[in-house]
């Protein structure tokens, strides 16, 4: 049944299900692990307005492109010939970015045999998506520990990969010490992904299982993530990935939790120096989904959105000049719905929220993209397949 639904979903986006290749037992196991409803997809528009989609099928990352914004896709190209246990659910998300010169960069996470462990994998295509380079493991620490939740930033020849890394946590535990959370790590390529520099730590004590958000503020690669502050308070932090140990607290929600929210935030830059943050908290100071702007000097007051009684969750944000678009997911007892709200004045005032799409099956998080400067929603669901639509408010 599930398989049939997946097939329908695959057909709906114009993909054909490839016959599963023959495996040995280990590969079968990994394929089985990876097939478990890999709903999390990655999508990006290139400069020409073509939609690129990366999704996981039977342990393989497959990349296809669409000339008509998602109605039809090209036959998918396999990135990793050898199936891997790819984590593509919820906070664990593959990544795709297309550089101005047409280089296609993809990033994903493989799960290792031990629970909560993984490696970060990267590949690129320099021939317009016809073929991909042999995948490399990005984390230079190869212990069977967590190197997960990778994020990707590409501008010209610069390729930054950031992820959450447990190497320091592991070292501390081995020495009989305590270590809160994991660490935020980064590596950078200045030759379009041909080679990467050494792994560098940006910050210690990130929350362990919340996705990272990244965006370019001019030449600065900014990251927004849930951090473990003193007293096991899991609020948000902001940092320039090029400046180690310089994080700034970005929310003061006071969410003391000895647990994992599995709920990262999102970040957008507006091209005018402003950053736009959306996140979820259940802190003492506030609860629910919030938006705020950061303009180098100060943060705006958190602005609450979404319906708490409908599990409002997993926000996304995109900025195009002064137009800021926010999307999030709700469940109203019947269906999952993607809601959007828009501001025309850089996040100072917001028009009334609208529901843009719904699904009664299992769903991925909403993804917001810019298509030639205009906000687009991309949403993957088990029953409807991939939906892409312009956000018009």
């Amino acid at each position, binding site marked *: 049944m599930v398989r049939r639904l997946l097939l329908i979903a695959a057909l709906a986006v114009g993909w054909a299900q490839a016959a599963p290749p023959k495996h040995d037992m280990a590969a079968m196991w990994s394929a089985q692990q990876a097939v478990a409803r890999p709903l999390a997809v990655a999508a990006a528009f290139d400069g020409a307005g073509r939609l690129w989609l990366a999704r996981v099928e039977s342990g393989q990352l497959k990349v296809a492109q669409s000339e008509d914004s998602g109605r039809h896709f090209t036959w998918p190209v396999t990135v990793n010939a050898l199936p891997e246990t790819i984590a593509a659910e919820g906070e664990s998300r593959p990544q795709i970015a297309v550089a101005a010169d047409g280089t296609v960069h993809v990033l994903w996470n493989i799960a290792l045999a031990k629970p909560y462990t993984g490696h970060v994998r990267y590949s690129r295509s320099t021939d317009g998506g016809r073929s991909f380079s042999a995948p490399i493991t990005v984390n230079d620490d190869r212990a069977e520990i967590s190197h997960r939740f990778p994020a990707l930033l590409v501008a010209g020849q610069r390729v930054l990969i950031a992820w959450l890394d447990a190497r320091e946590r592991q070292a501390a535990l081995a020495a009989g010490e305590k270590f809160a959370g994991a660490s935020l790590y980064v590596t950078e390529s200045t030759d379009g992904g041909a080679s990467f520099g050494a792994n560098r730590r940006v910050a210690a004590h990130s929350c362990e299982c919340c996705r990272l958000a990244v965006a370019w503020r001019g030449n600065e690669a900014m990251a927004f993530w849930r951090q473990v502050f003193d007293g096991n308070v899991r609020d948000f932090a902001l940092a320039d990935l090029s400046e180690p140990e310089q994080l700034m607290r970005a929310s003061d929600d006071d969410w003391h939790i000895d*647990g*994992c*929210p599995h709920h990262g935030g999102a970040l957008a830059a507006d091209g005018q120096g402003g950053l736009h943050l959306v996140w979820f908290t259940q802190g003492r100071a506030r609860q629910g989904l919030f938006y705020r702007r950061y303009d180098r000097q100060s943060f705006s007051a958190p602005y609450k959105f979404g319906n708490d009684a409908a*599990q409002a969750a997993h926000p996304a944000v995109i900025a195009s000049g002064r137009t800021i678009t926010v999307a999030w997911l709700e469940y109203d007892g019947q269906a999952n719905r993607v809601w959007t709200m828009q501001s025309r004045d850089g996040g100072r005032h917001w028009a009334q929220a609208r529901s843009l799409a719904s699904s009664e099956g299992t769903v991925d998080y909403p993804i917001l993209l810019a298509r030639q400067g205009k906000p687009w929603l991309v949403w993957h669901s088990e029953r409807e397949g991939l939906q892409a639509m312009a956000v018009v408010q």
Partner: protein
Amino acid sequence: MRRRLRFGLMLLALSAGWALAGAPKPFAADTPAELAKRFAGKPYLLAFWSVDCPHCQGELELFARLLRERPDLPVSLVSVDAPELAPQVAARLAELGLGDADNWQFADARAARLRFAIDRQWRGELPRSYWFDAAHRVQGVSGAVSEAALRRWLELGLD
């Protein structure tokens, strides 16, 4: 008819097999009401966990310890893992010696639907627990339960 009988027998065999293996019971949208009925007039605790939640493991160990001390502890453990992860869930419970606990597992991959049946505001953070007093007034707690809090609750509510 015969086919239907054979099908019925097969189902019976399957469910018997599950019961023998100590597999969690399917947690559906009407399970919260079922549990409320079972614990009518009594306090009880619902604890949600998943195999991919590091903080849940310590809490499960705590429950394993307390259940050895007091097998009648009114605690139901609910895995929010998708149904196809049943083998991993059962393996983890067996490993912790929790195979005989009152175990449940989300019967629907649409976790939002089941969460909605328990608490409309719960976004899925884990571990998550619901503490019901004898009048079934409930308090939801996100994050691992501390042993001190649990023992205090046991003393106040159960003795």
